[in-house]
């Protein structure tokens, strides 16, 4: 039987932990007065975001989480990997056979890369379909395309580092492609390779590009991407703007005036500056982001443990029967190499066509300036985009057909 004079539980806990809790709280207050953490946290977490369709908006944060995963796993791969033509393969072979945990880290790095490319593609498709590149967010889209190209570059330079057969021949083909640039091609190839042929300088150059040059460009651009997102607020998609066709001027003005930070996004098409229905970033959107990111990290972990990262035999430049196979995300380009044979057609297939595609991708916000957000009201954008995606899929399928002797 409890005595009525016994204090309730929380008070008891508070009394017991007071010797530790008071100094900690005091320290936090001291730091916060000088650093302003709680203000910043409040501003970051309690931003208004659109309410509907929020699960699909979690793809962006999933991309960020996987990039962070790549950086962390990459740092810890550095603890063993040596970027030397004689030791690179040996160091990774050691990991694969004598260090199970490092092998899992290496597997997470590889599958993280594959999943990152998939997620960044899905994120691009989502922002494209929802028209999130429209005024005033055009710059954010362009930054996003640059991020995509950087991630592609990181993917292919990373593939060259193990210096096994796959890596060596990938590096050979990729550095040779630049040779087809008119006039300067040969010199650019020598700069990339550190000489006319593949050698130790090739590996060290690509190692530096992979761990320093490209990440040094990537991280500030990620920061810019997030700053722009915060500046204009999340656009959401058309489900967040249902009803703007029927609202009166007065209603719209009232909605704009009552908008919570960071809305209204100006300059904007009429009615689209503020979503109809908003929610708090924390905990609603963060919850969805957390679930999706966690699911993806679990997939990466499982693939790393079950399948792992393959390591072929050490690079052999004198090989006679090895069939170099590109990474899956480069299969469409490889098929273009087959379809544009000989002389001047090779630069057309390798530079002109992908160049046109990339230019169109960058210019999307300027090619589609209508205020419509629903995809079925923008068929002149959706249909060519669908064909472009189908074209990439077809090319990849044809490459698979050719390379795997189907």
């Amino acid at each position: 039987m409890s005595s009525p004079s016994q204090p309730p539980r929380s008070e008891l806990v508070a009394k017991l932990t007071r010797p530790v809790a008071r100094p900690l709280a005091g320290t936090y207050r001291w730091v916060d007065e000088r650093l302003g953490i709680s203000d910043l946290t409040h501003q970051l977490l309690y931003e208004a975001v659109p309410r509907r369709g929020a699960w699909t908006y979690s793809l962006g944060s999933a991309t960020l989480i996987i990039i962070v995963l790549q950086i962390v796993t990459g740092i810890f791969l550095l603890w063993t990997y040596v970027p030397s033509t004689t030791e690179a393969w040996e160091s990774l072979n050691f990991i694969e056979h004598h260090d199970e945990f490092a092998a899992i880290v290496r597997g997470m790095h590889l599958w993280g890369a594959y999943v990152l490319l998939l997620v960044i593609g899905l994120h691009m498709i989502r922002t494209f379909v929802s028209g999130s590149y429209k005024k005033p967010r055009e710059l954010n889209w362009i930054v996003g395309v640059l991020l995509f190209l950087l991630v592609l570059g990181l993917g292919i330079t990373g593939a060259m580092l193990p210096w096994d057969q796959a890596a060596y021949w990938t590096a050979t083909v990729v550095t040779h492609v630049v040779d087809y640039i008119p006039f300067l091609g040969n010199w650019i190839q020598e700069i990339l390779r550190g000489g006319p042929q593949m050698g130790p300088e090739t590996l060290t150059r690509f190692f530096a590009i992979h761990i320093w040059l490209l990440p040094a460009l990537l991280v500030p651009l990620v920061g810019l991407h997030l700053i722009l997102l915060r500046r204009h607020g999340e656009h959401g998609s058309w489900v967040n703007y249902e009803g703007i066709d029927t609202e009166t001027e007065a209603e719209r003005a009232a909605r704009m005036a009552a908008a919570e930070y960071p809305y209204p996004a100006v300059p904007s098409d009429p009615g689209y500056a503020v979503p109809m229905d908003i929610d708090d970033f924390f905990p609603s959107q963060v919850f969805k982001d957390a679930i999706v990111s966690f699911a993806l990290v679990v997939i990466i972990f499982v693939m790393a443990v079950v399948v792992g990262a393959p390591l072929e035999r050490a690079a052999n430049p004198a090989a006679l029967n090895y069939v170099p196979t590109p990474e899956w995300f480069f299969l469409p380009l490889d098929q273009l190499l087959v379809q544009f044979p000989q002389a001047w057609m090779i630069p057309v297939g390798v530079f002109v066509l992908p160049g046109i595609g990339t230019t169109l991708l960058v210019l999307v916000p300027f090619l589609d300036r209508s205020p419509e957000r629903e995809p079925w009201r923008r068929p002149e954008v959706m249909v060519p985009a669908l064909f472009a995606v189908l074209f990439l899929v077809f090319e990849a399928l044809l490459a698979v057909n050719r390379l795997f002797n189907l």
Partner: protein
Amino acid sequence: MADNAQALAKKRISRRRFMILTINGVGAGTGLLIAAPIVGSVLSPLFAKRKTPWVLVADVGQVAVGVPTAYVVNLPTDEGWTVPAVPRTVYVVKLNLNGSVQMLTLSNVCTHMQCDVHWDTNLKQFLCPCHGGLYSITGTNIGGPPPWPLFRYEHKLVGNTLYVRNVLTGA
């Protein structure tokens, strides 16, 4: 006196402007000092002098006419500091041309994307597995994407012993 002082003041540059010019100049100078060696080092492979010594391949007296035979030769590539001997394949082809037997030393590097080419005994042609490039027994590009014939190593014969060096003709 006042006129002189005024004229002098007009010719002088203001403090603010002087400071801004100095900042710009120092910034440019610092950038140049940092960039010049970096650019030089990035571009240095273009200007490096490379040695190409003769390397022994094998005794090629027994190579049959019309049968391309692959030999692995360790060519010192003189790239960077380690100067490793990189194993490369040389195809030795003996052909009956105009009554005499001539010998070719073909490099097995595909002229399309530099993948490894091999002699396919069924097709009786050199085949590149990357994109289906085909070359004839003399190395002429006859099918697929390759834009040029197979390159040839500079070679010399001392008796029946073949030597090649890392200089390619036709490149």
